[in-house]
């Protein structure tokens, strides 16, 4: 949008130009009736000054008080009153300046036509101002609205990314606490993994997408930590088509799904659990598939697609405005989560 200062001065110039043109036309017109150029010019200037003042007044009024829907009649009354005032001004000022009987008669006879011309000019000004200012208002509102929406969206995306389970953090710290006692080197390694992972989650911004390779290496940190925690019970398989390696996706989109799979898998069976992650290229979509074993008989009833997954769904919805990018299947004791990330080529 243009700088308001700039539009304001432009408006002023247009207004002045209008007044000058109006005064010249009027002068020419009055001269046409056989009066001297001097008389004609004063007539034109005085008339334009009065009309200009009236227009300025109504314009200023409308700038600060946008009329409601029912109050157009007020504007009409205002226009009539201002036109009346202008005409009245001419009626008294002009004969006062020029003490000329013929001219005074001319002024008195032309009062009706002067009134209507003034009324039309003021009405036109009122209309233009009304449209102009309501449009400005609307633009301002729209801008505010989009800004508010963007802020809300950013905040929500931020929150969704931060849904890292505190549980994970505390349990990891507990594992480190255990390792410090008898395997200090591993404790140190785990601290590094944990800090790398946390740093990765902190600096990521949704608008900056990452490549699948980057996302997978970040995920690997998470998996390594979980493997230390659960020991031999947790195994992972990651396979990624060559074509997918440079695909882009929102950062940290895979982690909650894998976290969900691990939790679901590990807490639903007592055996060793293999969580598998597959990335495939499918017709301009990057398809990511995460699978974990589960026991359909004892699985706790899960609302919707599960807590972690609903966050992912919401994120995909905010980023791509689509609800069909995530799906889950459960069969043969295997729970599968599939997400599709549209790729722009």
């Amino acid at each position, binding site marked *: 949008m243009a700088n308001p200062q700039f539009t304001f001065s432009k408006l002023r110039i247009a207004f002045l130009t209008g007044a000058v043109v109006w005064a010249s036309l009027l002068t020419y017109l009055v001269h046409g009736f056989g009066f001297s150029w001097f008389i004609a010019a004063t007539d034109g200037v005085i008339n334009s000054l009065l009309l200009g003042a009236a227009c300025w007044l109504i314009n200023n009024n409308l700038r600060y008080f946008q009329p409601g829907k029912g109050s157009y009649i007020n504007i009409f009354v205002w226009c009539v009153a201002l036109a009346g005032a202008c005409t009245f001004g001419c009626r008294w000022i002009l004969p006062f300046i020029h003490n000329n009987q013929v001219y005074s008669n001319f002024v008195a006879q032309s009062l009706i036509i002067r009134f209507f011309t003034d009324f039309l000019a003021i009405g036109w000004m009122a209309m233009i101002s009304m449209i102009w200012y309501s449009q400005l208002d609307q633009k301002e509102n729209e801008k505010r609205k989009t800004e508010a929406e963007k802020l809300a969206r950013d905040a929500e995306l931020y929150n969704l990314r931060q849904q890292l389970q505190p549980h994970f953090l505390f349990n990891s710290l*507990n594992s480190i606490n255990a390792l410090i006692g008898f395997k200090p080197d591993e404790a140190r390694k785990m601290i590094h993994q944990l800090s790398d992972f946390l740093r990765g989650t902190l600096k990521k911004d949704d608008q900056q997408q990452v490549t699948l390779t980057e996302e997978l290496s970040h995920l690997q940190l998470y998996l390594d930590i979980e493997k230390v925690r659960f020991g031999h019970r947790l195994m992972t398989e990651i396979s990624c088509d060559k074509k997918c390696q440079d695909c882009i996706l929102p950062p940290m989109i895979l982690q909650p799904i894998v976290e969900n799979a691990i939790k679901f898998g590990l807490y639903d069976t007592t055996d060793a659990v293999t969580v598998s992650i597959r990335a495939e290229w499918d017709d301009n979509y990057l398809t990511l598939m995460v699978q974990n074993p589960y026991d359909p008989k*004892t699985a706790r009833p899960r609302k919707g697609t599960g807590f972690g997954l609903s966050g992912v769904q919401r994120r995909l919805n905010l980023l791509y405005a689509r609800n069909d990018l995530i799906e889950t299947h459960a069969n043969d004791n295997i729970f599968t989560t599939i997400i599709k990330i549209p790729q722009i080529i």
Partner: protein
Amino acid sequence: MKRALLIDDEPLARMVVLEYLQGFKDEIEVLGECNDGFEGLKAIQQHQPDLIFLDVQMPKINGFEMLELVENPPSVIFTTAFDEYAIKAFETHAVDYLMKPFSKDRFNKAVEKFLAQTPAQAKKQTETLLDTASQSPAQHERIVVKTGTKVKIIPVADVEYLEADDDYVSVHTKEGSYLKNKTMSFFEQTLDSTQFVRVHRSFIIKIQDITRIDPYEKDAHLAILKSGAKIPVSKTGYVKLKQVLGI
């Protein structure tokens, strides 16, 4: 000498407890370590320990569910990274609960608290703990029962009706019925009241399983369930049922 058992699904978490227990070599003997609630349950019945260190989030059945199945539960020290507010309710009833990761000082305090207790105190405390634990909302989605030596997890969705049976409640499902050492009023309070209605002093039925309600003698009715079971409905039970069904 007190005897203790460690129940936690994370090996490293047990390691910490073991290490910290070194300081109590003369007071506490470690009987063993268990990977999950099933192993824990077996080991408790077998060894009858005085104290267990128990994690809450474990595979298949959680710490509370395991405790429910133990006949003479020992004293409990929770070791967990569970949400603090969720466990707050049990704070006063467990010997203590340790938020992972916990320091050696904090651990020592918990164990000293346990050692200072008389057996009678300990028993009473554990009983209150069990009552409180079963009130937690997480426990209302499924019912964990023991059949012989096996543990059976019944999702609430599979329950058809509940019947009072002496000091127990018999949980009826399609696959059979299981005894649970709880009271009818416990289930009346904890089960979702829009799904389950206590229609009789001795019966709680699931509304969506009702196929028909017939009049039966004076003031009484009989509810016929999908499975064909006929459940008596008392006068007050009928009023409650009508309320929930909105008729």
